């Protein structure tokens, strides 16, 4: 532990005030959470500290608010919950951060050490329960441990592949008094390992020898800030780029070499280009099943270069021909100096032709959700942030919302947590108070964290909530239609709440927008700063296409043609038990 000034007079802290002070020294400027019995000392210290607190209405929303800050701004963010139900409520958001590699610090109150293990009131084994949902976790047994644990928590959360860290803090440790001669230095991320020069040279040679290379980019590129390097590599070597959901915004939408999102709901052209590739350059990706489809059929002709900071991702799903566990940005900076320029005229022409032949099905008319996405994007300010929920609307947004920059399209990619968008948007709005945040959610997802309308109203956040309302758990309904013989079970809502009335009940202006859409009503959301809700009617049975049937290869995607869909339904029925909806 490094002490800054050992000769200074000791300052007395409580465990609680020490934790708050250490958070402030890490640059934390806002904490989201809910107080309760086991974290009251923490809130007492917070109240006297000048640190901003946002009172959410469900601990899960506190976790997602922190994620919204971390995802949109970069760096770590913090949230608080009390013991027992507070901690269990928080865990979904923590698990979500783990799967998308988002650095958040969750601080949970715990019953006093003397009561731990006695089934005390609001006691749950938060430490044990959070092991698989965190990058690491701590149970703090003395106030002095905080001097080491807090900087370590931030170092762990921010180093290498980022992720959530949970600190469980018993009430008596919060109340303990401690003399601190000087505070430790804030935790900073470790310097990532340098890629091996000879390996990079081999990669450059492999790229030079390839006739049909493809860059496959994802969240790791965003985490390392390698957007510019990816674009440079693509441009210099004439390499087409496909992105995962987490990588949207890395490439310029207008770039002729950019093919958009791959995988289950990617365009046919995108998946065909990967299929035809002879070299897949995988950058900051983990070969997620939603991106690859059946792994045996993914880029079957391609050799693979894999760069990822997490060594355990290398070879986990697909064995690469050459790989390096390193920071993608550092590696690309050097790789880009080693690769020569290449035109790849034939491959580029083939890619261009495929894009022309197999684009995303253009929206049939104005009622198609894809058209609505484009319309809303045109109405929103050019620098608006978007927070999307999980389901059909998420995929329509990924397909049609023009994501111009990274960290502007917030989505729960790995865990696929419905209820994400509203609280994540709150974090984004707090981190960027001068920027409008657009929430794209469904009528299913909206109900999962609808209580946060209170938080939004209380803080007058500039959030435009678009509830894309089709009266269904749409992606479940779609899978039942396509893969379960049209046996619709529990996917239709018999009661459809009046979302506009609900929003007004929370003090948020709202409009209902029936089909066909009134342009003026849609535009009214963006007329003034502040929260607004639009309850937008969607056709009830519209499906997201293309769709790769669960368990199939990406090139076996089905399209909007009913005949094709029926064939696919017949052939995959009964073998789609892994077809969980997002």
């Amino acid at each position, binding site marked *: 532990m490094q002490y800054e000034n050992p000769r200074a007079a000791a300052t007395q802290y409580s465990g609680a005030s020490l934790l708050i002070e250490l958070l402030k020294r890490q640059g934390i400027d806002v904490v989201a959470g809910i107080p309760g019995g086991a974290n009251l000392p923490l809130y007492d210290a917070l109240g006297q500290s000048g640190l901003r607190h946002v009172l959410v209405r469900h601990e899960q929303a506190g976790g997602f608010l922190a994620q919204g800050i971390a995802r949109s701004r970069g760096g770590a963010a913090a949230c608080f919950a009390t013991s027992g139900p507070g901690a269990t409520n928080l865990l979904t958001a923590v698990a979500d951060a783990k799967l998308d590699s988002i650095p958040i610090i969750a601080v949970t109150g715990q019953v006093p050490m003397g009561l731990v293990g006695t089934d005390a009131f609001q006691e749950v084994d938060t430490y*044990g329960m959070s092991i698989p949902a965190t990058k690491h976790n701590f149970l703090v047994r003395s106030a002095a441990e905080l001097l080491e644990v807090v900087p370590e928590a931030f170092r762990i959360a921010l180093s290498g592949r980022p992720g959530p860290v949970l600190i469980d803090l018993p009430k008596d440790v919060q109340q303990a008094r401690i003399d601190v001669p000087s505070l430790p230095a804030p935790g900073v991320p470790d310097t990532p390992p340098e890629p091996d020069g000879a390996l990079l040279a081999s990669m450059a040679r492999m790229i030079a020898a390839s006739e049909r290379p493809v860059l496959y980019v994802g969240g790791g590129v965003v985490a390392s800030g390698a957007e510019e390097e990816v674009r440079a590599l693509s441009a210099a070597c004439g390499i087409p780029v496909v992105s995962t959901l987490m990588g949207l915004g890395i490439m310029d939408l207008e770039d002729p070499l950019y093919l958009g999102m791959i995988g289950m709901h990617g365009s046919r052209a995108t998946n065909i280009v990967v299929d035809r590739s002879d070299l897949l350059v995988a950058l900051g990706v983990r070969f997620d099943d939603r991106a690859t489809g059946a792994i045996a059929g993914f880029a079957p002709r391609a050799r693979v270069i894999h760069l990822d900071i997490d060594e355990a991702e290398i070879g986990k799903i697909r064995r690469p021909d050459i790989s390096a566990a390193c920071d993608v940005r550092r590696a690309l900076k050097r790789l880009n100096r080693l690769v020569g320029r290449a035109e790849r005229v034939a491959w580029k022409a083939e890619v261009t032709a495929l894009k022309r032949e197999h684009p995303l099905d253009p929206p049939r008319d104005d009622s198609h959700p894809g058209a609505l996405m484009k319309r809303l994007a045109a109405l929103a300010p050019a620098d608006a942030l978007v927070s999307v929920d999980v389901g059909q609307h998420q995929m329509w947004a990924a397909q049609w919302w023009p994501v111009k920059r990274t960290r502007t399209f917030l989505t729960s990619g790995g865990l696929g947590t419905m209820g994400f968008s509203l609280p994540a948007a709150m974090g984004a709005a707090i981190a960027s108070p001068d920027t409008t945040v657009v929430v794209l959610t469904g009528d299913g997802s909206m109900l999962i964290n609808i209580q946060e309308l209170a938080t939004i109203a209380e803080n007058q956040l500039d959030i435009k909530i678009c509830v894309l309302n089709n009266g269904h758990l749409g992606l479940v309904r779609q899978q039942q239609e396509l893969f379960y013989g049209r046996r619709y079970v529990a996917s239709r809502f018999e009661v459809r709440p009046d979302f506009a009335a609900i929003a007004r009940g929370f003090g948020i202006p709202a409009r209902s927008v029936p089909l066909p859409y009134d342009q003026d009503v849609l535009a009214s959301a963006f007329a003034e700063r502040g929260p607004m809700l639009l309850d937008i009617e969607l056709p009830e049975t519209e499906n997201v296409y293309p769709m790769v049937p669960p368990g199939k290869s990406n090139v076996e995607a089905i399209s909007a043609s009913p005949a094709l869909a029926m064939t696919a339904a017949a052939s995959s029925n009964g073998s789609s038990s892994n077809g969980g909806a997002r």
Partner: protein
Amino acid sequence: MSALPNTIVKLMVRNHPGTMSHITGLFSRRGFNLEGILCAPVGGGADSAMYLMVRNDERLEQIVKQLGKLYDVKSVTVLIDHTWSHAYKDGGEANLFGHLEELLNAFEAEERA
């Protein structure tokens, strides 16, 4: 006694109450097989040496990489590739499970007697 070839992975870990949960939890959550564990404090109790008997199959590399990511794991060493019976004949650390088996058999024989 397992018919499958096993290997022993030796870990040096920080010795605190949560370490064992982190390690066994990794095995259950990622669906790795764990055939046996031996663990004892070393060096005055700050650290523990932990011996894991695992199947020596294609997942071993993932197991080693995932163990290496755990905060409380200070080092990971794959001792040797061998079968259980081979381990028993070997000397040194790899023999630990052989000794354990011998002891357990002796206890069982005592109980039956």
